[in-house]
């Protein structure tokens, strides 16, 4: 069972240019979210967005830089929850940049959703949840195959 979100995009720019958009706080804010990102391994930072009450999300994403290999690979942890220091989402975002055809192939993998891994234990059980498992499988596949190629 796939437990991650994956997207691949192509940009007619060098990896160095694309890298800037992933690792500069001001540029990140332009397309992702307001943040205090610093390209330093071990650095804690936050993304700020609108709360989503029905999701139990207070709008703050607590992240930590795990890996920086300019201009090739960037990863950070991504935690979130309903507030009061409670974390219900515990995941990892990995960006990979590959120089290709006079441009850059950018791949995003958002994975390690711990609660989904907990959920995955129900897969393939004889009774109870085939419909639900199918639904989540479709959802994840849609995310995977819906990859945008520019």
């Amino acid at each position, binding site marked *: 069972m796939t437990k991650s*979100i994956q*997207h691949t*995009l192509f*940009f*007619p*720019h060098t990896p160095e*240019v*694309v890298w800037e*958009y992933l690792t500069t706080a001001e540029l990140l804010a*332009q*397309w*992702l*979210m307001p943040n205090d990102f610093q390209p330093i391994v071990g650095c804690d930072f936050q993304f700020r967005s609108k709360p*989503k009450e*029905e*999701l*139990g*999300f207070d709008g703050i994403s607590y992240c930590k830089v795990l890996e920086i290999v300019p201009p090739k690979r960037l990863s950070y942890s991504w935690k979130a929850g*309903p507030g009061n220091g*409670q974390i*219900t*989402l515990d995941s990892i975002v990995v960006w990979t940049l590959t120089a290709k055809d006079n441009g850059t192939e950018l791949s*995003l993998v*958002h994975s390690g*959703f711990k*609660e*989904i891994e*907990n*959920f995955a*234990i*129900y897969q393939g*059980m*004889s*009774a*109870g*949840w085939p419909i*639900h498992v199918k*639904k*989540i499988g479709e*959802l*994840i596949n*849609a*995310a995977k195959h*819906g990859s*945008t190629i*520019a």
Partner: protein
Amino acid sequence: MPQNMAQPSLDEFQAIADPSRRQILRLLSKERLTINSLAENFDMSRPAVSKHIKILEYTGFISIEDIGRERYCTLKQDGFNKLQDWIAFFDTFWKDKLKKLESLLNNKTTKK
């Protein structure tokens, strides 16, 4: 066993973070069971098992029905539905954000 362990503030994710509660769900995935017969599968006391069952009940993973003198537990869809919400949320989220990144970088090209 402390009486106040069933914190009403637990959410769906915390509900299934516990191995005993996952084991309860696993057992219930095969058939509906009474609280007593569920308790037989665990080394812990019956009140401790009851506590886990209560947590699973109010987080929407199971429902409890009184039949005669027995209390039967059955799996319920609600709690499980909540679990896929994060994935669905991030799917849409990244699609939107990556579109923005694309148009941002494409504008960069036209400006040059």
